[in-house]
């Protein structure tokens, strides 16, 4: 791949991101892995015990710190654009991390497991309140598709405008379709304002 522009300057690409959210164990990392061009990477952010972002290393040696891990993958769109997919951290106490992830994002996929619908409520609330475009993807664990799309929509009390799709997070084509659905939804939202 060539990263030199027509003027001979090195190109620093534009980065965009999509957030893969949802409750504990709903298949977030699995979805990132199925579409990423690289094996998912993991990076860690330093936190104080109270769950506050450490943005200053001063005095860190004496403090109790913990880390929050983020899984992410990458899709190189072309030489000028790269897409990152971030799985949200499992524990809900790291909301500030969600803010950083959501800022400037194309939107979010909220994965749900119909056996534990309620575990994805906080994710839906988060994106609804911040007016960030999102779609709901029902991860069909072992064909355990117990409900129809309409039943899921109703159970989650979702607005008609929010797309709900079925998927298998392990399957690349299926996950690709979910991403396409989200990007189209974001474009529609953009057109609507």
């Amino acid at each position, binding site marked *: 791949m060539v990263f030199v522009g027509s003027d001979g300057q090195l190109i620093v690409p534009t980065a965009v991101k999509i957030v893969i959210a949802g409750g504990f164990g709903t298949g977030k990392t699995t979805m990132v892995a199925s579409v990423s061009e690289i094996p998912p990477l993991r990076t860690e952010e330093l936190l104080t015990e109270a769950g506050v972002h450490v943005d200053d*290393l001063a005095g860190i040696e004496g403090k109790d710190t913990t880390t929050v891990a983020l899984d992410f993958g990458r899709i190189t769109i072309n030489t000028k654009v790269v897409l990152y997919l971030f799985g949200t951290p499992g524990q809900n106490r790291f909301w500030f991390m969600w803010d950083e992830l959501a800022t400037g994002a194309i939107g979010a996929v909220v994965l749900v497991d119909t056996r534990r619908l309620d575990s994805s409520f906080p994710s839906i609330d988060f994106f609804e309140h911040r007016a960030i475009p999102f779609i709901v993807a029902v991860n069909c664990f072992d064909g355990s598709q117990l409900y129809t799309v309409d039943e899921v929509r109703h159970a989650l009390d979702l607005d008609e405008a929010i797309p709900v799709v079925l998927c298998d997070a392990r399957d690349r084509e299926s996950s690709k379709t979910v991403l396409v659905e989200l990007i189209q939804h974001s474009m529609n939202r*953009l057109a609507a304002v």
Partner: protein
Amino acid sequence: MTSREDWWYDEAAGPLVRPYAMVRGRTRPNAPDLHLVTQVRASAFASDQTSLTVEHREIMALCARPLSIAEVAAYLDVPLIVVKVLLSDLIERGDVLVQNSSPKVPDRNLLQAVLDGVRGI
């Protein structure tokens, strides 16, 4: 590449001392606008690297192609904050180029490019 344990844990001094030592007492990045997906890459006109630490040089090698801050941190296996401090040094020296914009929601053309790209994978 150095293993996580080497970076992160010091047998005698305990955890967290190594990364602190690595940034040599500097506690926060002097380039403030570094986000998870901010793209960085080594300049084609990088200065003499002999005065750089091993960690800085590892970053320079990684950034021979454009990468996000998150990728640099993941490949080096150090916390994001530490990579941000180290990258700030290199940006200040002009050895690393940075995409200088904070994350903003993509416009329609960019979304269309991403849509086409994802369809094509």
